[in-house]
C-alpha cells in the first residue's frame, strides 16, 4: 500500500485511514460534518497526493493533448486549466483530468490515482504521431487542495505572494518550487498546490498550525456531490461516454479530430444524469431509481446526506428510453420507495470565482 508524504502527519492528527486506489488515505479526522462545514464556511486542507501528474513537452504539446481529450485545449490562453474527459475510440471514458497550460511547449495533466497506469498506456499509444516528450512524475509530486471562502486569507497568512493569490479561477502559475492552480473539487474558492514532498509537508504543517481544518476523503466526496461534480468510477466509467453523464459541454466537435470523435458524433446517449433531492431517507450508490409505476428506470451513481442542505441527495443515471414523462422519481431504499424532487441546477453553488 502506498503512503503519501503526509502519512505521519495524518497519524499525528488521529485520522481514520482507509485503503483507496492503492493508497492509505485519510477518510476523516474529526467528523465528516465538521470538515464539510469548515470548507463551506471557512477553509480546509486535503492531502490528495495520490493523484497522478504527467508532463507533456515539445512543439506539439497542445496539438497532442487536444487529440487525446474531448475538450478544447488549444483555444484557451496560456496559464489556463482545462477540465476534460479522455475517451477511447468507441467513445467510452478512460478518465477525467485537468490540463494545466504551464508554457507554450509544456503542460501538466493531473489524473485520478486509480487510473494512472491505464491513462499512461492510453496516452503513450498516440505519442508517436506527435513531436512530444512524456514524463510520469506522479511519484515526485505531492498535492494539497486548500478549499473554502477563507483560502486567500489562510495562504496569505503563511506567506503566499499576491501574484499567486490574485490568480483567476481555473488558472495556474509555476514558481521555483510549486505549481499552483485555482482549482478544486468542492465548489468553493481554493487552490491546488503541486510541490515536492518536503515543500508539501512544510505548507501542510504551517496551515494546520494556523488553524486550517484537515479534511478527509469522506468530506471531499460529500462536498463534490453537493455541487454535482462527477467522480470517475461513479458518474463516468469504462462503460459510458461523456454524453451519458451530462458532460456534453466538455466534448468539442468543432475543434478538429480527437480520439472517440467519430463515435461520439452519432452517439445516442443511453443515460441521462439527474439530480435528486429526497424529502426523507438517504440515497446510496447502487440504489434503484423507480418511476410512479414502481418500475426500475435507473441507478444512483452517487448519494449522500448533504451536510449543507440536511437532506439526502443523489446523482443518478436514468435510462433515456424509460425517462418518465411526468418527471416523477423515487429512490428505492430497503424496498421502500422514497419521494424525490428532480433539480436542474446543482444542489448548491460554492464561493468559487
Amino acid at each position, binding site marked *: 500500500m502506498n503512503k503519501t508524504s503526509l502519512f505521519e502527519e495524518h497519524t499525528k492528527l488521529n485520522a481514520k485511514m482507509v485503503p483507496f486506489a492503492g493508497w492509505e488515505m485519510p477518510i*476523516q479526522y474529526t*467528523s*465528516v*460534518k465538521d470538515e*464539510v462545514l469548515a470548507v463551506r464556511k471557512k477553509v480546509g486542507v486535503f492531502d490528495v497526493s495520490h493523484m497522478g501528474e504527467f508532463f507533456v513537452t515539445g512543439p506539439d504539446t497542445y496539438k497532442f493533448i487536444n487529440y487525446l481529450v474531448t475538450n478544447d485545449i488549444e483555444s484557451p490562453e496560456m496559464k489556463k486549466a482545462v477540465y476534460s474527459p479522455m475517451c477511447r475510440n468507441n467513445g467510452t471514458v478512460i478518465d477525467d483530468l485537468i490540463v494545466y497550460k504551464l508554457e507554450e511547449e509544456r503542460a501538466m495533466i493531473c489524473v485520478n490515482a486509480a487510473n494512472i497506469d491505464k491513462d499512461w498506456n492510453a496516452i503513450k499509444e498516440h505519442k508517436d504521431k506527435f513531436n512530444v516528450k512524456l514524463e510520469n512524475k506522479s511519484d515526485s509530486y505531492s498535492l494539497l487542495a486548500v478549499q473554502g471562502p477563507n483560502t486567500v486569507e489562510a495562504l496569505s497568512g503563511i506567506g503566499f505572494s499576491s501574484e499567486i493569490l490574485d490568480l483567476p479561477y481555473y488558472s495556474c502559475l509555476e514558481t521555483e518550487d510549486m505549481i499552483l492552480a485555482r482549482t478544486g473539487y468542492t465548489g468553493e474558492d481554493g487552490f491546488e498546490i503541486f510541490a515536492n514532498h518536503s515543500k508539501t509537508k512544510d505548507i501542510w504543517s504551517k496551515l494546520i498550525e494556523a488553524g486550517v481544518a484537515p479534511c478527509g476523503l*469522506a468530506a471531499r*466526496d*460529500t462536498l463534490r456531490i453537493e455541487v454535482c461534480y462527477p467522480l470517475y468510477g461513479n458518474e463516468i466509467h469504462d462503460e459510458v461516454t461523456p454524453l451519458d453523464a451530462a458532460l456534453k459541454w466538455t466534448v468539442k466537435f468543432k475543434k478538429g479530430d480527437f480520439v472517440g470523435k467519430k463515435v461520439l458524433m452519432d452517439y445516442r446517449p443511453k443515460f441521462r444524469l439527474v439530480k435528486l433531492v429526497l424529502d426523507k*431517507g*438517504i440515497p*446510496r450508490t447502487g440504489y434503484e431509481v423507480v418511476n410512479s409505476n414502481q418500475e426500475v428506470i435507473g441507478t444512483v451513481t452517487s448519494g*449522500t*446526506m448533504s*451536510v449543507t442542505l440536511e437532506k439526502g441527495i443523489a446523482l443518478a443515471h436514468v435510462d433515456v428510453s424509460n425517462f418518465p414523462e411526468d418527471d416523477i422519481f423515487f429512490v428505492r431504499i*430497503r424496498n421502500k420507495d422514497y419521494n424525490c424532487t428532480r433539480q436542474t441546477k446543482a444542489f448548491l453553488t460554492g464561493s468559487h470565482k
Partner: protein
Amino acid sequence: MSTNIPAELKYTSDHEWGKIEDNILTVGITDFAQSSLGDIVFVELPDVGTTVDKGGAFGVVESIKSVSDLYSPVTGEIIEKNDELESSPELCNSDAYGSWMIKIKISNPGELEELMDSGKYAEFCQTSH
C-alpha cells in the same frame, strides 16, 4: 479510544446495549458504536407489534457516509419504539445511553445469559479495533 460503558447495562458484540426490566429489554447503541459511526443522520426503527429474532436486523442507523444494520439482542415483540430518534438522530451521538431505540417483550429469557456485562464488553471493545 476511551469509551463510556455503564456498569448497570448488558451488551452485545454488535455494540448494542440492553437494559433488563422484568420481561422487557430496552435496546440502544453504545458509546463505542456512536463514536465509530460518526455523525448519525438517520435512524430507521421497526413498527410496534413486529416480532424480531435474536441476531436478526430490526432497523438501520446511517451516518453521512455509511449504512449499518441494527441487530436484535433477543427474540421477542417490539412493544415500543423511540420516535424522537427519527426526527433527531443526532441524539444517538450526544447521549448514546439515553437514546433508547426499541423495547422488546422477551420471548426466551434464556437468551439474556448470552449478553456481556460491562467488564466483558470493555474487554471486547479493546480487541475489536
